């Protein structure tokens, strides 16, 4: 091991992975602890959502009653015309856009551009809040149409149960993300990340990496939505 390469010049490709995993001290060179921890949390959360979606598929296959037609249930009547999936298309567009603003926030964060980064974080939080608001709107429509966790007018009772559970669980993730984004906005604007000011709760010093870590979470929540969208609205 004495002849191993000096740090800072990792070999490329697969050899690099092997050399990282067989090295001492850190496995993910230069990644600190925060980013690996978030990735690991995301991995665990993937299993939660994965199990949710598998449970949904299983329930849908097991139920003896017909499954309601997504095209009709989720249609919005505008100007006297029924447009299927209109609301959900807008919601999806908004959430995906928020991933864009988040990515830009990370970029400006690493450029130490406090103002722009902060505003982009605020924009991300706003888009996230709009998404949650529209989800609440959609729930209201469905509830007024008679969808309940224990039954609905069109068929299998499991439709409402899985829908409210899974979109609700995802909506909770988005809401937590929005709150975290607002908190991060305050930290960024106050300069906590430049000064390394200790956090009020955890006591950890502020680092610009925090914006990226929050970004990882946000992108993950968006990605999960794509799957929920596909399984609930397109199947």
């Amino acid at each position, binding site marked *: *091991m*004495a002849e*191993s390469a000096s*740090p800072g010049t990792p070999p490329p490709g697969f050899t690099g992975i092997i050399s990282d*995993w*067989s*090295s*001492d*001290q*850190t*496995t*993910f*060179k230069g*990644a*600190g*602890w*925060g980013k*690996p*921890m978030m990735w*690991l*949390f995301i*991995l*665990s*959360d993937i*299993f*939660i959502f*994965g*199990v*949710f979606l598998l*449970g949904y598929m*299983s*329930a849908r296959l*097991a*139920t*003896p*009653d017909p499954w309601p037609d997504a095209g009709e249930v989720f249609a919005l009547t505008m100007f006297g015309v029924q447009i299927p999936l209109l609301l959900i298309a807008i919601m999806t567009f908004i959430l995906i856009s928020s991933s864009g603003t988040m990515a830009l926030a990370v970029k400006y964060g690493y450029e130490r551009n406090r103002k722009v980064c902060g505003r982009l974080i605020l924009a991300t939080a706003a888009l996230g809040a709009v998404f949650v608001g529209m989800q609440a709107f959609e729930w209201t429509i469905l509830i007024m149409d008679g969808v*309940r*966790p*224990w039954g609905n007018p069109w068929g*299998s*009772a*499991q439709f*409402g*149960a*899985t829908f409210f*559970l899974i979109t609700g*669980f995802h909506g909770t993730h988005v809401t937590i993300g929005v709150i975290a984004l607002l908190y991060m906005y305050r930290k960024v604007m106050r300069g906590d990340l430049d000064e390394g000011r200790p956090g009020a*709760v*955890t*006591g*950890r*010093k502020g680092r610009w990496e925090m914006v990226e870590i929050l970004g990882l979470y946000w992108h993950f929540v968006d990605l999960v939505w794509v799957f929920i969208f596909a399984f609930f609205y397109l199947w």
Partner: protein
Amino acid sequence: MAELGHDATSYAPPREQPEMELPHSHSFWTTYVFSQDAKTIAIQYSVTAISVGLLAMVLSLMIRLQLGFPNNFSLIDPSNYLQYVTMHGMIMVVYLLTALFLGGFGNYFIPLMIGARDMAFPWLNMLSFWFYFVSVLVLMASFFVPGGPTGAGWTLYPPQLISEGTPGIHGGVLVMMISLGIFIAGFTMGGLNYIVTILQYRTRGMTLMRMPLTIWGIFLATMLALLAFPALLVAALMVLLDHLAGTSFFMPAMFSMGEQLPHEGGSPLLFQHLFWFFGHPEVYIVALPAFGVVSDILATHARRNIFGYRMMVWALVAIGGLSFVVWAHHMYVSGMNPYFGFLFATTTLIIAVPTAIKVYNWVLTLWHGNIRLELPMLFAIGFIFTFINGGMSGLFLGNVTVDVPLADTYFVVGHFHMVMAVAPVMTIYAAIYHWYPKITGRMLHEGMGKVHFWVTFLGTYALFYPMHYLGLAGVPRRYFAYGESSPFIGESVETLNAFITVAAIIVAAAQLLFIYNLIRSRKHGKEAGPNPWNATTLEWQTEHTPPTHGNFGKELPVVYRWPYDYSVPGAKYDFIPQNVPPEEVEMADEGAVRT
């Protein structure tokens, strides 16, 4: 001259990252209660887990009293009995074993053994313990809600979990599910810390393949837990909704007590899949740290390097991976496509391969070793015996055709208590006897320890071995009494049941002796010194015993070799600690006889 020992280098790469940010405590509250020091958190975890484990032991005695001497005790009625069975199982598996191995041992040993000052994110680590503590309190609350705790069995199968007639369906089920939810949230916080600390905070020279096997076991078990607990969390949420919101995830249309229940279209099988997707990895969440701990203790007390270190690591990895594809072997009698039974029987039996590698390697570690039958060693050898015996009956249950007649009999109870209860508990004792001197600075009392070992070891055999016979005789598990079916159950069954109960009471008494030993030795034990077992791993090389905040004094240790340099030919002493560079190893005098 050649470097002494295996995998020794005289060079360690320079430091890659700055010192860890360590939170310092300023008051009694932040030092002892809301501590962010992994060692204090470990002790909090351990004390809580052992306390709740003692309660579960009392519950098991209540079960045994009824079975051994039916209807002699007026305080045990059929619903109480089912509640005791449920709570005993759930507490032992989740709230004792998981919490003690990962929350307790993980927190104490990870930073010390890899040469870190603390966990990566101490605040989250503290929160992890408090979530665990609250989950235990919530679980205990279920004894006080109307109707008492749930009596659906620790596997919590719907529909009886939510149907009228099962004890505790009004409050107990809800409390259990909420408690599990809090436990999983808390465990995730701790688990993230364990993995990230191992991957990102090893000291200079500590490569993954130089980690003690204890750390490998905890690392992989935590990984399993992070991926398996989600299934239980989802199942718990769905049960809560089935109960509270009137959904039917797991409830088919059914009649209960002559009335149609307000459920329809759900699938009880889905619950079983979710539960066992968690439940089977859970077995290995408990077993992998036990494997690791036993490996380290065997090597230390046999003064010999662990046989086939790399194979041991890869066997752990293989077992961890395979544990995710065997879950349905718990469901052979649930009504599955026979091809699935075949598939899952195959994967189940394949697990025997890496497990056998481990067992052979343990035995080969002892071969020609300088075995010292100290207390940790006794328990570690006890583990090997128990684990092999328990594993053998697993071969029966893993095969569909043999399992079908044996399912839901005492054979199953005997099997998993040998392999999943006694074996890990033996390891826990081995670990406590081994590391107590480091944690407190004092040795546990040897005589009391020996009594504890022999009574526990022989006693648990007297307890669980006859259960295999009961199972073969067809005695079903979880029955309160045999009632009208008594004529079909031989007299020997009653005699054996009484015998088992007496054995259980004796074993339980020995555990109280152990608790007394723990408390007494804290103040009156023999002074241990920093390294009483002459062990090589980093936790024994700390500046202070017990280690202080930050673990290693001013300078972090640097690692130059693997953790198993015992009895290295040519060296003066029969152990070379991991942080001794090759040029500083003391050589034996010319012509001296090595002891």
